[in-house]
């Protein structure tokens, strides 16, 4: 499943971003993922556990996942709408919009290191 790829990608991305010594002191990874991202936290936590079996060096690193709701900002009237039932339509002026400002993210939001 794609959760495994995502966990791999998280560590590949961090390895590009930080020095090895720093990564050795990594304590926690915080993800911010939107409900549109198709990430199911429970499955991702499972995949994360499984990853450690083959990659014990990151065993002690905690994973935190924050889910975000779906929001669009209207290009015409700038009104922000909480999208319900995947109707991408401005609450205020009723015009359709694809301008997603929240809910699509798949971010490594924050990384914690021990000093």
């Amino acid at each position, binding site marked *: *499943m*794609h959760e*495994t*790829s*995502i966990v791999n*990608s*998280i560590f*590949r*991305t961090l390895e*590009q*971003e930080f020095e090895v010594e720093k990564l050795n002191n990594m*304590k*926690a990874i*915080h*993800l*911010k993922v939107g409900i*549109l*991202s*198709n990430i199911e936290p429970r499955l991702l936590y499972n995949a994360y556990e499984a990853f450690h079996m083959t990659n014990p060096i990151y065993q002690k690193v*905690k994973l*935190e*996942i*924050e*889910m975000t709701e779906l929001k669009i900002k209207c290009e015409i009237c700038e009104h922000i709408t909480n999208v319900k*039932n*995947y*109707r*991408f*339509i401005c609450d205020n002026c009723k015009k*359709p*919009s*694809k301008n*997603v400002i929240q809910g*699509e993210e*798949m*971010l*490594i*939001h*924050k*990384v*914690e*290191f*021990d*000093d």
Partner: protein
Amino acid sequence: MVDKSTKAARGTVQCENTNINLLKANDFVADIIKKEMAKTGTLLINVTSSAGSGKTTLMQKTAEKLKDKIKIAVMVGDLETERDADRIRETGIQALQIVTGGICHLEAQMIHQVLDQFDLENIDLLFIENVGNLVCPSSFDLGEDYRVTLMATTEGDDKPKKYPKMFLTSDMMLVSKADLLPYVPFSVEAVTKDAQEVNHELEVIQISSLSDEGVDEWCDWLLEKIKQKKG
């Protein structure tokens, strides 16, 4: 979920606000693919759908219709077998199977790895047939110019709201197996309404590889996009 770590800060913990896309490694490779395609003016189309919606059959049909006008090649992602690529080769165009070995989607890296097996200078249109599933492939940019999603009349018309990300990121929805419309409970109107509630820019063509309905319209769309890409 509450951010526990900031509340329970103990000892000296150093925090870095990164905000990096967790698929950054994929998107980096997708950009490289885009640049390669720009060099040769090859149009890259990522074709997605649930399993069995008619992707390979449509590739065959499109190859038959267009192979005298333009040069087409296909990459086919599949969990285990070589069958789809064989089917496409029978129409006389180059097809390459990417066996994902159980991974349910294609990633940019997998495309990039096989790209040098194609003579891109001599290819106007390169299709990627993604692995059949509407979830995972939606998150992985393959450097495509357009994403085309098939929605077969046999799979029920509630897919757009079940898999919104795929429809939000697609440019074209092909309502496939349209020849079966008289026999199945499926409303093209309802599916179009739902899909365009998710993505109002989504184009829709009703198509059948069996009866040829919509195939000319689809081919014209492709030819137009190829023309635009060549500039």
